[in-house]
């Protein structure tokens, strides 16, 4: 089974968005500030639903917020389906 690693740039995107606080993002995404902190540190992998809510709250596509590596190789989430087809 390939090793999947999910990273994110939530911290950078928050600062790009008028230095949005973790609490403000948590309020917008419907979770606790501690969960946002854990996701930023890659200590917790959010559900797909929460990942989408975070992306919406940051006003960015999901693929801009979360990055996926498969066996060390980055996967382009936005175009992966097209490549397979």
């Amino acid at each position, binding site marked *: 089974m390939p090793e999947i690693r999910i990273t994110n740039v939530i911290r950078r995107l928050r600062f790009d968005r008028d230095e949005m606080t973790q*609490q403000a993002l*948590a*309020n917008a995404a*419907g*979770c*606790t*500030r*501690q*969960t946002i*902190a*854990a996701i930023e*540190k890659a*200590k*917790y*992998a*959010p*559900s797909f*639903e*929460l990942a989408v809510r975070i992306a919406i709250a940051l006003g960015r596509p999901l693929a801009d917020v979360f990055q996926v590596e498969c066996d060390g190789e980055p996967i382009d989430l936005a175009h992966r389906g097209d490549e397979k087809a």
Partner: protein
Amino acid sequence: MTHQERASFVGLLSGILLTTFVAVRLSMLFRSDALSGEDAAQVWASAIVWVIPAAIAISAMANILFAMAAKGDPNARVVDERDRLFEYRGMGVLLIATGLGFIAMVIGLSLGWHVPVALTVLYGSVAIGDIAGNAVRIASYRIGG
């Protein structure tokens, strides 16, 4: 610290407190031969039946205190998927401990254990499972995921 994390701390402390009281009470009963008669199971139950309302009262008081402390903070009671994940993790620990205690009790009874001893083993497994479950929840919050 989230509302759920604080609740886990209170659960851990109250669990340790109640279990200590019960352990002391039961050890006194076992030493006094009060559990050697035919009504041993009834005496045993009477000795620890107060634990149920006491646990409910402690939980209710803690919730009231949290609500007072978090007055005016609309996010104080937010429970999200991470809280639920840790809740299930803790419940899993409690379930495993209770299951093992039940199996030990059945095996013990089949080997001729005295009923109060078997009940104590079952109660102990539930109490230890509750404490361990809360400890696992707190550890999960500390670790992060």
